[in-house]
């Protein structure tokens, strides 16, 4: 037990240092390995993983909401939150307390069971996906060998939650919003998955840990030539649609559907939907960073030895944070710049443009792989 504490402390230090040992066991592996020796140590690792994920969820929710408000404010020539805490940093915390302490309103004719289940379903999907995101060699809870498949599967839980929430509210606007969300998310899931498959083709693995390892030589975005770049673009567009964010925020459609699927939700349940939206954004950005931008790997430019050495000194967690943060900024940028698409335009974009594009792209990726012109590092 004591050893576990010491290891944790060392690991925490280690994760901030510039150690170049990429192959650290994940928390789940540590637990499995410790199971034979001491069940307590095993339980400790599992507990650490769970608590860490929950803490990360809360922290991410709070900080992303704050970031969104501040960034939106910049775009709109205003200041954003300034009063609570240093530069308004505690504003989201205050808002969370407000939401939690609000009256628990349920529409009279709502389907109570589904109405209560929906937000939890959305959040639990996010939680399950979050466990799989490799934030650094040491902050990695589980490395499933079917990681990508798992993430797409549990990510689809959110659409179920949205559909249920809209249906159970017994409100026509909510229903319209949730049907839009259903049509939209199910459609965009296709090109999203097809763009993921490009990387799976290149790496030959669904495990996120292995995908990151495979990018030691260079990020897939550069190494995968054109197919990877196209896949990256498709991924960013499709995940914006998956996230229900502007220009694809038809499910909420504030000016059309009042608030879409969560019109009838308030208080804690609304907070959960809101939290899920931001976590989803983090997961999408983290996934894009992991697959295309090398995850926690530092930026290396072939031939520049000194530059690469300097880059190596930046801890992996910082690299992951920078890449993910950059992508999150892009999502926010899109949101505060674009108007919203119409439902038929949205579906047309997917079925007539993105889906054929990503299918052709997958074929091109396969050709590139077969001809072996994409450089080193792929499966032999």
């Amino acid at each position: 037990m004591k050893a576990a504490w010491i290891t944790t402390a060392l690991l925490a230090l280690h994760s901030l240092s510039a150690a170049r040992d990429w192959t650290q066991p994940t928390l789940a592996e540590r637990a499995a390995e410790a199971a034979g020796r001491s069940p307590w140590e095993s339980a400790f690792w599992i507990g650490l993983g769970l608590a860490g994920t929950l803490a990360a969820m809360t922290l991410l929710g709070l900080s992303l909401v704050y970031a969104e408000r501040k960034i939106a404010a910049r775009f709109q020539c205003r200041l954003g939150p300034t009063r609570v805490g240093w530069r308004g940093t505690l504003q989201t915390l205050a808002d969370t307390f407000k939401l939690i302490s609000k009256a628990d309103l349920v529409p009279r004719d709502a389907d109570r069971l589904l109405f209560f289940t929906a937000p939890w379903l959305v959040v639990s999907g996010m939680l399950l996906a979050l466990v799989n995101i490799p934030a650094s060699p040491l902050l990695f809870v589980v490395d499933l060998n079917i990681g990508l498949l798992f993430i797409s599967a549990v990510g689809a839980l959110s659409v179920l939650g949205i559909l249920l929430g809209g249906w159970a509210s017994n409100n026509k606007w909510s229903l319209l919003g949730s049907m839009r969300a259903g049509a939209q998310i199910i459609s965009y899931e296709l090109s999203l998955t097809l763009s993921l498959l490009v990387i799976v083709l290149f790496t030959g693995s669904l495990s996120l840990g292995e995908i990151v390892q495979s990018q030691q030589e260079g990020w897939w975005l550069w190494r995968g030539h054109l197919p990877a770049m196209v896949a990256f673009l498709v991924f960013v567009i499709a995940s914006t649609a998956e996230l229900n964010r502007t220009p694809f925020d038809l499910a909420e459609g504030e000016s059309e559907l009042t608030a879409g699927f969560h019109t009838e939700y308030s208080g804690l349940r609304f907070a959960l939907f809101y939290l899920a939206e931001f976590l989803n954004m983090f997961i999408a950005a983290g996934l894009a960073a992991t697959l295309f931008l090398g995850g926690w790997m530092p930026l290396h430019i072939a031939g520049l030895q000194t530059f690469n050495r300097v880059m190596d000194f930046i801890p992996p967690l910082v690299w992951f944070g920078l890449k993910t943060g950059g992508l999150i900024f892009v999502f926010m940028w899109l949101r505060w710049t674009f108007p919203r698409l119409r439902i038929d335009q949205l579906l047309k974009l997917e079925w007539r443009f993105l889906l054929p594009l990503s299918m052709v792209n997958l074929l091109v990726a396969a050709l590139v792989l077969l001809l072996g012109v994409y450089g080193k590092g792929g499966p032999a």
Partner: protein
Amino acid sequence: MTPKTLTLQDLLRTDFAPGGGTQEYFVNMGPQHPATHGVLRLLLKLDGETLRQVIPVLGYIHRGIEKICEHQTYRQIVHLSDRLDYLSALANNWCVTRVVERAAGIETNERIETIRTLMAELERLQSHTLWWGVFGMDLGAFTPFLHGFRDREELTQIFEDTIGARLTMNYIQPGGLLHDLHKDFAPRVRAWLKDFGTKVDEYDRMLSGNLIAQKRLVDIGALSGDEALGLGATGPVLRASGVPWDLRRVRPYGVYDQLDFVVPVGEKGDCWDRYWVRIEEMRQSLALCETLIENIPEGKTMLVKPAAKIRLPEGTFYEELETPRGIFGVHLHSRGKDMPWRFHFRSPNLHNLWCITKIAPGARVADIVAMLAGLDLIVPDMDR
């Protein structure tokens, strides 16, 4: 033969598709809905996301202003007129003033007319900046909303200096103006106009050129010139449909006859044309204001005694002018008292609203919002 009156129940009778096809359903858009900007209620008959029929239901903000007017003196009526279309308060003031002045035979001087014209044009800019922001928000882009309000705020403060109010402004009165201009008025307006010239270009960069915005607007809700005339549409809505009818040009009032400006006219009458006409109007108004602010003649600003009772001769009088939203008319029947016997407003919004019944069927829910935004409706003006 009396025409049959349709009740709401008649209109609501749904023809369900025979053979269990798709079922149409009704949704209330409003009276509380973010896109209707007020208490307008639209009853939508939908087939999935496609609109089959739209039935506007009015009466949620009826205040009986026309009836109240029958018990107010002519000076007091001016103060009620800005509660109608609150974004063209000064234009409404001016219209009431004009009808009273014409009936009472009050002559005004050049200074008063110039300031009135300037105020009306500034208010057109104020109204159109707000419209632009809200238009962006209705399309789903929230940022234009705050940019529009930012630019409007400056102008609102300028109005506040002189008039004392920010929204329901009372300034134009029978016989002149309520006060003279504030001493900071001219420099502040000049500074604002200079600044705003770049802002219109910024609006273009932010929203007009956006691919998504264009996709959402072009060929949506096309209204032909004949239809627009038939529905009584006026203002930018009519001009977007290709009818160059602008009272400032065809029946000049104020000092418009001395001014040089272009009346922007659309071609197809779709949402994009309505958008473009308003953006162009902003540019024209900007140029007009720049001319007017330099050419305010000296003179008195009030030509009748403030406490004097205005008594109109018997008869019926009608005056109209071009507000930012179209033709606002005042119909007045006097029986020789200091209060009207009957007072009626012809509001541009009520007529523009009915365009939605023509252009909306077949569109999607999102298009209705774009169309409503393009018509630029102010609800308290429809229900008086």
